[in-house]
């Protein structure tokens, strides 16, 4: 038997108030894709940060070859052949693609000068492998989120890696880019690199990984061979119980039309968009990244002015001039980019959650702290947010728990129309089904809910009707009875589908 590329033995890591890792051991073989799974906050990213030299463990050892090694910092980890593709984009937007890929190790020549020629040459050969549509000199801030993710991925190819860690690399990639990523992984695998792959997406895990290791609340639950297990078994190890995946089939009465959109256009972003959503209904928006779904949501939330068309709330035509205006009219938007738009990372959990309603939560001139805590507690329980307490900085929460804070924030506003953009990006299966159930419940309670998602199972699961978009236009609107996966795929790729609402 070959030796593992690396072995983790009894790793322990505590943060103030949190035992993030509690004796985790596992090993990665050369040429293997090893999945690491666990709920939000289970400790996956923390474990990888220990391996990548960003955190120092409080106990346990990292063994490479036969000797325990100390990863004093990220550069040292890299020097030992460990490449870390981070969950949250870790890029300098003002710098070029090339400088970002080689961040921290720009090639040098005399007098400490950057060797631009060598840098460009190396970068371009990597970009060619990745088959992307930008070059070494593009400013990273000008790239789409998906392309920025590809820049992160490109970092895996810069060194002679022994092990590459991918922490939720596909969260913002389109299907085409995923194919490229999986090719990259296959290449790395073929050359004997050990790959650690973190994702909440079961279908990916079962498609590309060889073994799965599972964490729950910082504790190691075991490792299974992917070929010999099932989604249910893995889920049960992750959350310690069976998951109820049945759709909340409560057939309630639909109310009147809460929101209607007629012939709405916005420059080149989308055009002639018409749809309506009733109280008690979940309307799904499905399409490829860039189909214009987010832009429609932004228009409804007062972030963009439409160039033509009408928006009607409860039958009355309105002009939504700003987010404050939208909120006052009972429209809430859970944005897709939680870091940029949804959260104040330096603030604590409670204050983030009550941010939009600070004006309503006053007791005289002071903040009504008690009421704020009560709101926080309510949604922490409802959404199962894992945090040692409301005082925790949101920036210290795991990625999935941050997303739940954003959702809780807007739910606590009791909107009439709730728009959620990619509501479960980066969220584990357990909480995902919780959030789906919650969206259904909200509809049942008489809210009109719009869900934008790039995950087909998700739209199929939660929506009463599905709007299929392609390149800024609505191709077709399906009811949940008539929709099939095939017809949906056809509609969003611009093939077939009669262009009627």
């Amino acid at each position, binding site marked *: 038997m070959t030796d593992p590329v690396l072995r983790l033995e009894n790793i322990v890591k505590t943060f103030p108030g949190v035992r993030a890792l509690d004796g985790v051991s596992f090993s990665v073989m050369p040429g293997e894709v090893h999945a690491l799974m666990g709920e939000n906050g289970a400790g996956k990213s923390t474990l990888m940060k220990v391996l990548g030299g*960003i955190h120092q463990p409080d106990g346990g050892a990292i063994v490479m070859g036969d000797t325990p090694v100390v990863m004093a910092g*990220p550069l040292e980890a890299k020097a030992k052949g460990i490449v*870390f593709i981070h969950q949250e984009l870790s890029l*300098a937007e003002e710098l070029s693609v090339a400088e970002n890929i080689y*961040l*921290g*190790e720009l090639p040098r020549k005399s007098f*400490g000068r*950057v060797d631009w020629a060598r840098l460009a040459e190396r970068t371009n050969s990597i970009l060619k492998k990745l088959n992307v549509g930008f070059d070494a000199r593009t400013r990273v801030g000008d790239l789409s989120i998906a392309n920025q993710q590809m820049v992160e991925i490109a970092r895996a190819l810069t060194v002679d890696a022994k092990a590459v860690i991918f922490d939720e690399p596909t969260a913002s990639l389109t299907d085409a880019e995923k194919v490229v990523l999986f090719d990259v992984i296959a290449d790395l695998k073929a050359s004997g690199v050990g790959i650690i792959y973190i994702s909440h997406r079961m279908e990916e895990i079962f498609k590309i990984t060889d073994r799965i290791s599972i964490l729950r609340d910082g504790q190691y639950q075991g490792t299974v061979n992917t070929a010999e297990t099932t989604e249910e078994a893995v889920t049960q190890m992750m959350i310690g119980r069976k998951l109820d995946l049945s759709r909340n089939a409560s057939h309630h009465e639909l109310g009147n039309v809460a929101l209607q959109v007629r012939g709405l256009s916005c420059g080149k972003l989308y055009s002639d968009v018409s749809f309506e959503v009733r109280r008690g209904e979940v309307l799904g928006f499905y399409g490829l990244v860039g189909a214009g779904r987010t832009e429609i949501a932004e228009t409804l939330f007062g972030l*963009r002015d439409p160039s033509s068309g009408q928006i009607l709330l409860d039958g009355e035509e309105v002009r939504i001039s700003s987010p404050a205006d939208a909120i006052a009219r009972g429209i809430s938007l859970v944005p897709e980019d939680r870091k940029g738009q949804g959260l104040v990372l330096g603030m604590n959990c409670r204050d983030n959650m009550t941010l939009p309603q600070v004006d309503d939560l006053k007791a005289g001139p002071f903040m009504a702290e008690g009421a704020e805590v009560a709101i926080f507690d309510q949604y922490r329980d409802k959404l199962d947010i894992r945090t040692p307490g409301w005082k925790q900085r949101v920036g210290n929460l795991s990625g999935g728990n941050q997303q739940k804070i954003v959702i809780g924030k807007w739910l606590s506003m009791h909107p009439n129309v709730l728009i959620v953009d990619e509501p479960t990006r980066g969220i584990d299966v357990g909480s995902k089904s919780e959030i789906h159930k919650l969206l259904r419940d909200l509809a049942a309670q008489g809210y009109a809910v719009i869900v934008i998602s790039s995950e087909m199972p998700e739209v199929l699961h939660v929506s009463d009707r599905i709007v299929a978009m392609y390149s800024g236009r609505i191709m077709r609107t399906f009811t949940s009875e008539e929709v099939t996966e095939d017809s949906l795929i056809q509609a969003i790729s611009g093939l077939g589908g009669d262009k009627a609402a």
Partner: protein
Amino acid sequence: MQPGALSKALKSGAIWGFIVLELAFFSIAGEFLSLSDKAFMDWENMLLLLKQSAPIGIIAMGMTLVMVNGNIDLSVGATFAIAAIVLLDSMTWPIFAGLGDWVIPVAWLLALAVGTLLGALNGLIVWKTGVDAFIVTLGSMLGFRGIVFMFNGENPTSHLNWTLVDFAEAQFLGLHTATWFLLGVTLALWFVMARTVHGRNAYAIGDNREAAVNAGIRVGPHMMINFAIIGFLAALSAVVFYSESGSVNPNDGQLYELWVITAVVLGGTKITGGAGNVIGTFGGVIAIQLLRKGLGHIGADTSTVNLVIGLILIAVLILDRQLNIKGKEELKV
């Protein structure tokens, strides 16, 4: 054209457009309002303008580096004064009495070393304590100024060395010594920021500190080097200026930090770090000096000058914001 390209082009060109506008305005307004009958865009006048830009300009180049790095240095004016005192006073020290004119390079080196050390000290504190550079340098601004007053009370420190004055007043290829120093420093800083690994890492740190840390860039040492550089440049600015004037008041250099920061921001450096360059800063320095000189030319007093510059700074920041928003396809914020 990529989205945002127009806004970027406008932004990088804006400061030069502004300078042209100033030149035109003061030339025309000067015809009617000026007390002297000399034209504003007189060659001599422009050469003088460059020379007068040097003290602020030399420091502004260092400030560009420090601000791109995500920091700020408020203590440059006080460092400037300390270096000036070291320069002038050390030339009278008895131990150097036998050196003759060789005392000049010695005094220069001493002043530059002191400036560099003070800057490095700022950097060390920012690095080791993690306290915000704004606070640290606010403290050292007060502290350094205190030292200046302790040295000679309210009295000026003076020493005239005629060799030195001759050197400082010399003109080479038409440009004054001070102008040459400004150009040299601009070129050097351009090289450091655009061409060296240290410079590029400084951009990365200012842009996204966490990303830089994750990539293994040693943030602290880079910041300390940059503070040492700006300390050195504050001292160099003093050395160039006081070689000619030969007398330093304890209040000299006050408000320099604000002029310098204004020039850097006008020149397009992002206040939060990560973007900016010395060429833009050079434009910012010239624009401010033109404004001061031009307003003087048409008979405005100092308080008017300050008011106008303040208004322009705010106008530029608003314009910059508008351009940025246009770049993002009208997404309202």
